[in-house]
């Protein structure tokens, strides 16, 4: 390959390939997260969910996409045309741009910036302009109110989530996504376990930042029709939708990298080999899992009612078999290749676990009222995050001065933050009651 491409542009080739892959795959991924959401929701409500298009609704996202693209594109008469056209683009561009610093495994990263985390935060916070300008340009009260709520919510929860991230940065001592994962590998513990309150605050903050239930007030159907998206339809609407799901993957990716050990395998210190080979048991797990999924879908194929659905089911099985083959083949490849492929597998597995938690929370909790949302953000999460950051600072001093271990030194911090959390929660209850009595 080296002699085909001039050396001056060689360093740009691989990043461009990754970027093209991400831009091409992400809409598909977003579609399937929607399907996953509908299936999980159906499961939690004891229904079946989409079953018609493809076996178990597996082709539903493609049908949805085609429908969206064929819909009429409407721009309201009194809308600010330029802004109306521009706003969804801002949302989707910023969401996609954030992927350039995300490290999906040790080998797959477009750019390893030494301000990586700050870059992702900055770019994803710019996505708010898409929502705010879109809501304003629609020239509709529902849209404007949705946009205003969105801006207020984002500014409030970004502070808490940012402070939660700082507690991890103190431990990792770097802003580069790769170095943060490396620090977790060196210290032998995922930061989610050593600073559980940081993780908790980030989890709540990230749900609020992506405007998802129970914090989906910017698009609360029962109050604001569809919030900032009310006047949008067809392709523009689907751009907003894509941005929303891309942002979900981004926050899940940040949480995975900072709190869940990024691409590190669970039990990274456990090195039990399969007898007679140089392969570790835990490394064989991904291949066996995907093989299991392949066999399961193969066993489901004869039970499908229509012939075309049987064929699709077999195709799904073949796809899983292929993935299993790649994962198994990686075991015999050089360590760098194996790390890259398995790292990507574990990273994606953790991202989807985090997204599953999002969906679970969505279908479990009722929506907050707007004043409750603000009170939770400013009077509970932000003070808690501040205490947590100070506690982590203390833990680092303990580690440096008294040579305490990476886990032991953080136990006082966690207990202290827990105490503050209980105090804040207790303090908050009478205030809420008083406001309710006032008829607020």
């Amino acid at each position: 390959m080296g002699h085909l491409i001039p050396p001056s542009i060689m360093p740009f080739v691989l990043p461009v390939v990754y970027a093209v892959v991400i831009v091409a795959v992400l809409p598909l991924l977003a579609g399937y997260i929607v399907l996953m959401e509908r299936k999980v929701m159906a499961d939690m409500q004891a229904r079946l969910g989409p079953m018609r298009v493809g076996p178990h609704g597996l082709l539903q996202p493609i049908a949805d996409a085609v429908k969206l693209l064929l819909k009429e594109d409407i721009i309201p008469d009194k809308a600010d045309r330029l802004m109306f056209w521009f706003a969804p683009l801002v949302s989707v561009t910023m969401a996609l741009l954030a992927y350039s610093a995300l490290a999906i495994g040790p080998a797959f990263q477009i750019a390893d910036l030494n301000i990586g985390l700050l870059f992702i935060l900055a770019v994803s916070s710019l996505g708010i302009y898409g929502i705010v300008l879109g809501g304003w340009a629609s020239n509709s009260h529902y849209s404007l109110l949705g946009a205003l709520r969105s801006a207020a919510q984002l500014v409030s929860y970004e502070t808490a989530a940012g402070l939660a991230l700082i507690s991890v940065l103190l431990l990792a001592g770097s802003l580069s996504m790769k170095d943060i994962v490396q620090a977790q590998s060196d210290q032998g513990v995922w930061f989610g376990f050593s600073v559980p309150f940081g993780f908790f605050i980030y989890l709540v903050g990230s749900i609020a930042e992506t405007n998802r239930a129970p914090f989906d007030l910017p698009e609360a159907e029962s109050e604001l029709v569809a919030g900032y998206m009310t006047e949008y339809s067809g392709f523009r609407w689907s751009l907003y939708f894509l941005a929303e799901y891309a942002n979900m993957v981004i926050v899940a990716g940040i949480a995975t990298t900072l709190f869940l050990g990024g691409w590190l395998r669970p039990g990274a210190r456990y090195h039990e080999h399969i007898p007679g080979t140089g392969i570790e048991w835990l490394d064989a797990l991904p291949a066996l899992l995907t093989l299991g999924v392949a066999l399961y879908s193969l066993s489901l194929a004869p039970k499908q009612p229509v012939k075309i659905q049987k064929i699709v089911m077999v195709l799904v099985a073949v796809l899983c078999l292929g993935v299993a083959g790649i994962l198994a083949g990686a075991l015999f490849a050089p360590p760098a290749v194996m790390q890259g492929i398995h790292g990507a597998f574990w990273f994606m597995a953790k991202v989807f676990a985090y997204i599953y938690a999002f969906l679970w929370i969505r279908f479990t909790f009722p929506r907050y009222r707007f004043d409750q949302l603000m009170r939770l953000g400013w009077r509970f999460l932000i003070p808690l995050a501040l205490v947590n950051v100070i506690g982590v600072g203390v833990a680092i001093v303990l580690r440096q001065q008294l040579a305490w271990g990476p886990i032991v030194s953080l136990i006082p911090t966690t207990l202290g933050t827990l105490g503050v959390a209980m105090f804040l929660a207790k303090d908050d209850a009478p205030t809420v009651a008083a406001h309710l009595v006032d008829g607020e």
Partner: protein
Amino acid sequence: MQTLNQALFIFFAVLAVASAILMVTRRNIVHSAVFLITTLLSTAGIFLLLEAEFLFIVQIILYVGGIMVLFVFVIMLVNLDVSMRQVQFNRQWFVAGALSLVLALQFLFAIWVGRGALHLHGTDMQIAPKNTEAVADALFSHYMLPFEIASILLLVAMIGAVVMAKRRVG
């Protein structure tokens, strides 16, 4: 590489100046805000070209991601139809002209004083790669006192804002 950098600089510089001009000439205040954002972003781009990536990211996070969101938030609450019909520009040519002249002289003086730095001798590529740490080092060792004074000023302003907001409710 040099020409690419130059092309990028010209791009960002033109974008910054053009959107700054557009910002003050638009009648629609939301459009003005958008052009202000573009100006801030292209200035950030110039910081990045100078390999000051921490400054670049702080400019985006603080100004574009924080302050401008609040600006836009407030603008949304303004009744645009009314404000667009009002006269928005004072026509006091004399005062404006005098002030601009003073400002221009100030700029010229600053350039004249710093003229020695205008000779661009190839950028020093051996700049420390960890920009963030260099900024932190400078702030917390050499410029400790001014940094703390600024922090206290900001804290006072914040508490003052809270107190003023509370008084109006009570």
